[in-house]
């Protein structure tokens, strides 16, 4: 492919990452043995467990790459990668802190004021402070630049916010929303201008969190309504009007991690137990095919972690990984179904039947959240020089 922007250098081997991997594995084995959690599919959306998040914070496994002065641990993205993929592979309950650790913290580090960083980052790293993504709105999905939530300065220099954000995962358990708002009237000639990010405390008056249940009845999503909510003037994140640029940077973190191909890994693990028991050639071949796809995605994701360590912002490769990875997450269900004779049911006596059910009921989300695969392919097409 030569000079296009999709390829990244191979990830360096990291002995430190392999060391912390062993520590996480031992921790997870002990937690599982003690019954502190049970393995589920897609736990980075549905597995909210603040006590578990605090344990990870105590171990130094949140805010891993951040400066120590903000409660971080100054470790590499490769080490953080190892920790996150071990947690996901175990189906551990990581949803409470996931967004804060993955993208809100790095966003604050990059664009936050000294006061914002000092106040909030140590709490995120301790596993005590959770964030939601305030991007999508009822009328703005893939077309993010069309958002209508407005923030205007009042006489005290504070922001008065009106509008609504949707698909805000776990807002009912979270403390802050980094909220993309319009701070200047929409300019048809430059749709990306006039947008800003606000750091919004969800406990402020004028903010209501209403549940939106996903199709299996689970409560993860919410609608966050702003009705003349007054956000202090110093809670602007970064620069007024630079919201679009900041959101784009945030998405490189949001799109590239192992959660973009491991959401259904617990189903693969359960299927592997069946294949080991049955020793059926077709099942073994399916396990091999799925594993080969997973291993390729893992290498791609590791390369992105390596690029983040070099200070790059690989937004186009991140879009590619998320497209290929989330397609894989859903394909796992179809591939497994072709070679086992197990109906999917949450009430199944067979753990494989339960894993299939959990994976299937969450499947529509995989290729939507964080940018639909159609949007992602558009970004990849730009990387190919077609746009």
């Amino acid at each position, binding site marked *: *492919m*030569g000079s296009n922007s*999709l*390829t990244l250098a*191979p990830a360096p081997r990291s002995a430190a990452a392999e060391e912390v*991997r062993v520590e996480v*594995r031992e921790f997870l084995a002990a937690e599982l043995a003690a019954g502190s959690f049970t393995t589920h599919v897609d736990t980075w959306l549905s597995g909210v467990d603040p006590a578990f998040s605090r344990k990870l914070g105590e171990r130094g496994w949140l805010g891993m790459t951040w400066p120590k002065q903000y409660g971080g641990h100054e470790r590499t993205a490769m080490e953080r990668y190892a920790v996150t*993929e071990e947690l996901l*592979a*175990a189906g551990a309950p990581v949803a409470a802190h996931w967004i804060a650790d993955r993208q809100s913290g790095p966003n604050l580090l990059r664009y936050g004021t000294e006061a914002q960083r000092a106040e909030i980052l140590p709490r995120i790293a301790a596993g005590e402070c959770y964030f939601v993504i305030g991007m999508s709105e009822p009328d703005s999905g893939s077309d993010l630049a069309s958002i209508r939530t407005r923030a205007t300065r009042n006489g005290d220099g504070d922001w008065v916010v009106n509008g609504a954000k949707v698909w805000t995962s776990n807002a009912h358990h979270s403390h802050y929303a980094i909220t993309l708002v319009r701070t200047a009237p929409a300019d048809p000639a430059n749709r990306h201008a006039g947008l800003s990010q606000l750091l919004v405390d969800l406990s402020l008056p004028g903010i209501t969190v209403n549940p939106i249940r996903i199709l299996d009845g689970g409560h993860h999503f919410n609608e966050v309504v702003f009705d003349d909510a007054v956000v202090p003037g110093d809670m602007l994140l970064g620069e007024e009007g630079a919201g679009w640029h900041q959101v784009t940077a945030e998405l490189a973190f949001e799109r590239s991690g192992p959660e973009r191909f491991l959401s259904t*890994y617990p189903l*693969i*693990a359960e299927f*592997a*137990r069946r*294949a*080991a*028991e049955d020793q059926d*050639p077709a*099942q*073994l*071949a*399916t*396990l*091999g*095919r799925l*594993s*080969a*796809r*997973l*291993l*390729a*995605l*893992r*290498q*791609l994701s590791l*390369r992105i972690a390596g690029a983040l360590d070099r200070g790059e912002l690989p937004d186009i*490769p991140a879009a*590619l990984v998320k*497209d*290929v990875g989330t397609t894989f997450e859903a394909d796992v269900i179809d591939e497994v179904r072709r070679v086992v004779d197990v109906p999917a049911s949450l009430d199944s006596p067979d753990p494989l039947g339960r894993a299939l059910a959990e994976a299937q009921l969450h499947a529509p989300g995989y290729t939507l959240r964080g940018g639909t695969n*159609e949007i*992602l*392919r*558009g970004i*990849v*097409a730009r*990387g*190919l*020089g*077609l*746009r």
Partner: protein
Amino acid sequence: MTSSDVDLVVETVRDILTKFEPFVLTAERPWDAGLWSALAEAGLTGVGLPEEAGGSGGELADAVAVVGALAAGAAAVPVAEQLLVAGPAVLAAGLDLPSPDEPLSIAVDGAVTAEPRDDGDGPGSWTLTGTATDVAWAGVARHLAVLATSPVGPVLALVDVTGRETTHAANLAGEPRGSLVLQEVTAAGALLTDAQAQQLRARYALARAVQLSAALQQVLAWTVQYAGERQQFGRPLGRFQAIQMELAEMAGEVTAVAALVDAAVQAVERGESLVLAAAAAKVRAGAAVEVVARLAHQVHGAIGFTQEHRLHHLTRRCWSWRDEAGTETAWARVLGAGLLADGPDALWPALTRAV
């Protein structure tokens, strides 16, 4: 030659390739002898093989780069077999490497038995009998590394096949894949362990994966280029979202294959266990052919379906290479079973170790 010379090596190969356009292979003209001579003259048929054994020196990465550049150029020469499979296997078995100027290929299929002519446990003399099938470059290669069976285990034997009769068969791209009948042929050979024999098969699979990765990258590049040039409805094809989605899907496949194949090659360089990494690379590369070749032809339209257009030189090779040196299904079973070797609950640790 050092690893830092990889770019230079690739440049040299590409420079030579400009003088040798791919052509339709036939029984009468089954390979590009002129290209082989040019490559041999430049020392490129010995890259990665040690100088003291008659090779050109350099690392595995250099050999992989040469093989990749030739695969992307649809070069009809047995370089992948010589540099990545047969050459290293012959040396590892303690046999004498033939001159890199004389094409050396590999035969792992069929039924060839080896009877020892002496009782040494080092390299020795064997009598080979049987038929080697699906032999890459049968009738073209001067020497053949044959994986045979013997009463005491697998044997790798080096056979001079000059003047020996081969049956003609070809893969979907016309590359020779005939059979060779051996009737009490005396050859130098060495006993391998079963694990070594499996590693040889895995190296062969990895060589095909390296070729596939390079060829798929080239197919993507051609398709992107074509979509930028071909105008319909008053604009280039690449301006249509429907086409952009297809090209992005191709790019996803190609990039995933490249990442895994590169990682598998690096695992070999580090001397790590080869079989699962090679199996994964072969399975992933083979699976990508389905998507990439289909969409490349779809975007190219009818012209890409013709013999006059260059696209078939690579898509036909890809359709064959995914089946050769073990099909995806065969290697997927090896991979699946291998990942469960430490027990039904140990899949994840096995995955994080595999590549």
